[in-house]
């Protein structure tokens, strides 16, 4: 069958990213032809500023060379401008009469710099700053001339001014608004920025209006020689200028689309109108990037453009999944040595609250804007380490009540492990380790970002493995991305799909399973349009858990969709043997159990016997074939130390023995463990019960921590002793053990029903907010009892996999090796 023809007009970052995504999804669907007006292949436009500043070269910023197009069978026409789209014949034409037919057309024409029609705007020496050509023109001018004026004190203007200054020119920035970068900064931050740029030798005319560009006499070449303006005092002034850079903004390049009769936004700044699939009013024509108007907004930063690319590619590939629903953007100025970050709505307003930290002499200013207990915007100046963290909070819409008192001091203040406590990626040496799990150092990450042209956290994770295991170094990796790939790097998408098999998020999958009463993994995948026939190692365990937790006793467990530990009911070790941890209620044991354990250790030649942090005994180095016999000989219940389930209830000896004990914590722990064991959950669950506030069982860092006090028990939830030590939060104080069982059970059932797979209680509670949990568990007695009853229903009759393997669906075949027998041919 003949392949469809896809023609792309424009060869910029957004368009080529779309092609990359498309080739991943449907490499053979189209014959692709690309027309680029510039004579260069695909380069990183964001990094033109470092090129102008002399910090990088054009070669450094190339993303896809011409060989990439050849390798992927793409016909590339450089230096060719499309001047006409014939929508009837489905054909495009270049200025020099070349034509190309299309079945699908992708417009990625980008944007044009705005040129103010001042008298003299056409003079030689008046240039814009947009592409490699402009950059070269600016660099050439710096070699010959002394005085430059930049019109426009926005992001682009300041980057241009800085670059020209670094190349030795006298630079004055003329800016119309009340302060610099008024779209990205508030007045205070704008003034700080101006001061530090002035310290670098730049001059400013703020609130100044340019009136005219004056030409030198024609015998001197007729080049621009001065700028006439009216300054903030209303006084006229003439600045010498051999070079004038117009950087007053960009406007979507829609001329071609408009001439072809495609609907463009009538409101400024214009843009080709597209729907959530990036389709224009002509269903054969898609548009992407800076040239489009989506829901009335035009985006100029790379992150949203790449989000668009993903969606557009999916529709071009005829998968028809996914919608682009707009983006929240963040900005960082790419002037080396100046740290500035802004995101969201930072101007505030009547219904907003502001937290401000201001140290003008230290050059640090931070403002966070909060509305309805959510972060909606912020400006950071001088210290932007936490920019990516704030941006994440902002995009996730997470309630910040529990963080509020520490919010201003940043994520580093919350304490990660695994990278020597470093929190500022830029001050790290190349050999310093960023990712402690996978042993990835800073140099390796920076190299991968540069050489492979990475833009997103996901890409860095895939290529380098950094931040792909425990995730505690995510903030550092994001900082490196920002610093290396350019200011407006792309953060993880706002809506995060479970895995590459689907567009669905964890929440959407959960909701669909509940609302449509889905009972099997294949049915769920079918209903939710999974792209792969039987999922992958990421989505299948998640779906299996959602089915079982939503429909207990109805949905059937699929052991093949569980990680090996939950399939073999033991923990796999690095040498392929397993470890076995029998359950000891509340951490208490006796002589006959210890004798049986000792006998098992001897009989099966178990190499290591270790006491665990959860007060259990771990037998390490058991061969898989021996597991069933070991379980039988131990004659103790499964400890579920291998499962996303209730692990242990750790206890202190309590009032039975301890001279300080106020409550019988051991008995409470045993009761809790007997009530909750065999309980599968989104992730592992650990409890502890201490008999007094000395808290010897470490209840403060457990999913549910119970502490005995004279008048009863205090219950704490959502603690964690892992990657990021998180102190559990106080939930409620109760009087009786029966209440402890009900409150703890109800909280865990809420987590079981609403948590996302692999989300620990601390992250679940962080996501929904402690107030929400309290409202249900503490304030609503009916809801609490109902939750507790649902938990008991789910656990009722749940088998012990070690001793009732048939009922638990344990595949016995896995424990017996196969034997290869030679047969007669």
């Amino acid at each position, binding site marked *: 069958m003949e392949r469809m023809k896809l023609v792309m007009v424009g060869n910029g970052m957004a368009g080529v990213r779309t092609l990359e995504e498309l080739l991943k999804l449907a490499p053979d669907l189209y014959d692709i032809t690309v027309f680029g007006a510039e004579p260069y292949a695909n380069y990183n436009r964001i990094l033109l500023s470092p090129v102008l500043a002399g910090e990088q070269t054009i070669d450094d910023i190339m993303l896809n060379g011409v060989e990439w197009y050849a390798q992927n069978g793409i016909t590339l026409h450089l230096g060719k401008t499309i001047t006409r789209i014939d929508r009837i014949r489905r054909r495009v034409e270049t200025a020099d009469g070349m034509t190309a037919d299309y079945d699908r057309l992708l417009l990625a024409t980008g944007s044009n710099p705005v040129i103010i029609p001042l008298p003299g705007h056409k003079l030689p020496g008046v240039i814009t700053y947009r592409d490699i050509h402009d950059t070269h023109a600016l660099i050439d001018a710096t070699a010959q001339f002394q005085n430059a004026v930049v019109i426009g004190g926005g992001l682009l203007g300041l980057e241009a001014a800085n670059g020209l200054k670094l190349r030795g020119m006298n630079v004055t920035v003329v800016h119309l608004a009340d302060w610099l970068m008024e779209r990205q900064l508030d007045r205070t931050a704008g003034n700080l920025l101006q001061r530090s740029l002035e310290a670098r030798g730049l001059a400013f005319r703020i609130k100044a209006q340019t009136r005219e560009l004056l030409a030198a006499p024609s015998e001197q070449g007729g080049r621009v020689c001065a700028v006439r303006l009216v300054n903030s005092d209303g006084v006229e002034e003439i600045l010498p200028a051999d070079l004038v850079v117009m950087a007053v903004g960009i406007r979507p390049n829609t001329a071609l689309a408009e001439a072809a009769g495609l609907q463009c936004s009538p409101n400024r700044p214009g843009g080709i109108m597209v729907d959530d699939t990036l389709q224009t009013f002509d269903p054969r024509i898609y548009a992407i990037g800076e040239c489009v108007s989506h829901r009335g907004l035009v985006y100029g930063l790379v992150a949203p453009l790449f989000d668009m690319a993903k969606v557009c590619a999916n529709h071009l590939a005829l998968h028809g999944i996914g919608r682009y629903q707009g983006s929240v953007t963040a900005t960082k100025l790419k002037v080396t040595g100046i740290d500035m970050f802004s995101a969201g709505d930072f101007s505030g307003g009547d219904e907003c609250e502001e937290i401000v930290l201001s140290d003008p002499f230290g050059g640090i200013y931070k403002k966070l804007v909060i509305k309805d207990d959510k972060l909606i915007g912020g400006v950071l100046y001088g210290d932007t380490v936490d920019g990516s963290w704030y941006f994440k909070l902002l995009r996730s819409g997470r309630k910040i009540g529990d963080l509020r008192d520490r919010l201003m001091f940043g994520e580093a203040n919350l304490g990660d492990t695994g990278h020597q406590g470093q929190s500022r990626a830029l001050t790290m040496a190349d050999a310093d380790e960023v990712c402690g799990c996978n042993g990835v150092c800073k140099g390796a990450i920076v190299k991968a970002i540069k050489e492979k042209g990475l833009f997103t956290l996901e890409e860095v994770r895939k290529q380098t493995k950094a931040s792909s295991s425990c995730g505690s170094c995510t903030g550092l990796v994001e900082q490196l991305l920002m610093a290396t790939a350019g200011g407006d790097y792309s953060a993880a998408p706002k809506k995060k799909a479970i895995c590459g098999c689907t567009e669905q998020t964890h929440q959407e999958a959960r909701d669909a399973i509940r609302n449509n009463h889905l009972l099997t993994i294949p049915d769920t995948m079918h209903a939710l349009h999974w792209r792969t026939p039987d999922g992958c190692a990421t989505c299948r365990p998640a779906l299996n858990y959602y089915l079982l937790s939503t429909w207990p006793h109805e949905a059937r467990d699929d052991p093949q969709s569980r990680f090996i530990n939950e*399939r*073999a009911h033991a923990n796999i070790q690095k040498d392929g043997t397993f470890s076995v941890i029998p359950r000891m209620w509340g951490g208490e044991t006796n002589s006959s159990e210890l004798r049986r354990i000792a006998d098992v250790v001897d009989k099966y030649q178990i190499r290591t016997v270790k006491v665990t942090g959860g007060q259990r005994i771990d037998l390490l180095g058991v061969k898989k074939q021996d597991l069933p016999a070991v379980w039988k000989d131990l004659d103790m219940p499964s400890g579920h130390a291998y499962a996303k389930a209730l692990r242990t209830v750790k206890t202190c000896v309590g009032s039975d023995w301890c001279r300080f004990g106020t409550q019988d914590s051991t008995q409470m722990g045993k009761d809790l463990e007997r009530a909750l064991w065999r309980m599968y959950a989104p992730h592992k669950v650990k409890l502890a019960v201490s008999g007094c506030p000395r808290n010897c069982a470490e209840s403060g860092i457990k999913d549910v921590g119970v502490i005995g006090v004279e008048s009863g028990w205090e219950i704490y939830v959502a603690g964690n002793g892992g990657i990021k030590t998180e102190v559990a939060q106080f939930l409620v104080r109760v009087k009786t053990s029966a209440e402890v069982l009900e409150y703890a059970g109800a909280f865990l059932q809420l987590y079981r029903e609403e948590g996302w797979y692999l989300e620990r209680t601390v992250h679940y509670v962080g996501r929904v907010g402690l107030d929400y949990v309290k409202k249900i568990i503490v304030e609503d007695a009916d809801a609490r009892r109902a939750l507790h009853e649902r938990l008991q229903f789910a656990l009722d009759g749940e088998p012990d996999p070690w001793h009732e393997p048939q009922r638990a669906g344990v595949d016995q075949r896995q424990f017996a090796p*196969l034997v290869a027998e030679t*047969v007669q041919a």
Partner: protein
Amino acid sequence: MGWQRICRLDELPVQGSRVIERSAHSGGNVAVFRTASDRVLALLDRCPHKGGPLSQGIVYGESVACPLHNWSIDLNTGCALAPDEGCTQRFATRIDSGTVYIDLDAGARAPADPRPVEQVGADD
């Protein structure tokens, strides 16, 4: 040795695998996988990354995810999926009237063509 009988197809778990034990001296264990679409493929039970037992991984599509560090290995080629790199040895298998055979000869490498040698009678 040539073709050796190992088991009936229904003795292999769907989306799962079982192990043929061999001493380290004779090359180490071999993992025999059965996919959701009832293809049977065999690899040396050693992940090219850190030697993890692939037989214990989650089988999906025609790949297996190593249980130790979640590398994905293509069951047809024995090679890691991008961006990871490395391959483990493949063994030819065939299904005849519901019985699974394997060729464990180190010399008789599985064919370069990633499709199976023969798949007849995979009907039960």
